[in-house]
């Protein structure tokens, strides 16, 4: 299983509709709206890189998405 963060920059005023669409996507484990350099962080969980490309593609197709940066998780420590 591959996990990745997809950091998204949005065009102003399009976030609400874009998030509704992102919530329907398969392989999306978590979505956070954040304040700062990025607007949305999506955590994707996929079986292989092909599926990750598929998720990234679908996100880039959503209206209002200006730019995505994908960060593949190599190692993780977490409380939960």
């Amino acid at each position, binding site marked *: 299983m591959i996990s990745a963060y997809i950091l998204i920059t949005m065009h102003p005023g399009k976030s609400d509709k874009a998030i509704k669409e992102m919530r329907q996507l398969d392989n999306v484990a*978590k979505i956070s709206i954040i304040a700062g350099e990025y607007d949305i962080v999506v955590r994707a969980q996929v079986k292989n890189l092909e599926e990750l490309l598929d998720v990234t593609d679908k996100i880039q197709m959503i209206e209002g998405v200006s730019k995505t940066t994908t960060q593949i998780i190599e190692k993780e420590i977490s*409380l939960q």
Partner: protein
Amino acid sequence: MVIRKKYLFYTLAITSSFIAAAVTGVDSFVGGQPAFKTDPWSFAFSLFFVGSIITLLISLILSIKIHGKSLGAKILDPSFKNLRMVQKSELKSHIIAGVMNAINTVGYCSIVSTVQDPSVILSFSQIVILYLLLMESITEKDVPTLVEVQSSVIVTFGAILASISLTGAFQLFPILIVFLVVNPTWAVFSIYQRKLKIMRINNRPNDSINIRFWNIIFSCLFTALLIFFFDLFTSGSHLLAGVTASIDPYYFMLLALTMGTTFFAYVLYIRSLGMGKASVNNAIRASTIIFAIPFSIIMLQLGLITEFSTDPVMLIIKVIGMVLIVMGIISFALTLVKAYIFIDVKTGRPLKETMQKLWNIRGVSHVTITSGKHDFIVKVSTRTLMKGYERIIRKLDEIEEIKKYHWESVLKDWEKI
């Protein structure tokens, strides 16, 4: 479907409290039966004994596959696959939780058997929330904030007021049992149930149905042992009385009803323990006292119980207690700040060492090493931004491997559960 985790957490915890309130009503009826009224020890054993059987049956039914997915996964816990043997990695936690549950039950029984009206004494068991805050500050590397302490104190005192009775009397020994036996054992029990829930078994999140099943098995075993030794030293026959009552068809049916309902309350409670701290869970669980009141009124109307105070002074005290519980829970719910920290590090330093330094910072809940623009993405939770600065940013500044970082507060989030 990706939903807001916060909503699910509170829904699970409050639904669990609602079911637990229904169980409390049934418990008081079952506990009032001739076989148990004068012998709370046999009542405790019978509950666990019949509970083990009924939990096994429910768990087996929930293991039935429908369209490739178990019934339990569809209706209770998506992590549940089927009933399985306890794994080596979870054995220690199950033993500790089982021993604590058994000692807790024995402590509770000793109070019920020695005090005529135990409600005054048992209301102090709500202080367990404060025990949990203290223990979590050690085990979960998260020192409670002023807001958490205030909310916990509000809920605790609210719960005491809402559950207190003016008809009982203060006695030192039973109060000592509450403070030294009942509360610490419940706190350790909750923490180990949470540890079990956040474990990964066979590369998937541990499920609350197996946790509940194995907990009741271990609790039954250790309770039987404790009552056996108690009988041995006091020449009593509580264990035998418990077994006899358990196999009586009428009592079996009543016990099966109460423990069958308890199963669902616990499964939801364990699920919510996997999402939030044990202290916050127990604070929300204090709402059981509020839900118990309508159930008590219904049972009074049905003639199943005979005692429920309608004294105006008592009712005012209880209402004040309930308002405090609700305020405390809302305060918990509204005061949590989460953030991502994106970190770039200097080259020539091992990433694993930096990862450990980041993980050691209080309030850090996730550390990930990532390939791409940033070297680390760290997730933090804090009750206030000031605490975020003092406990997290200052510590980041001390890590010399870090070249630059930026903090981005989470405004709203959703999670697939």
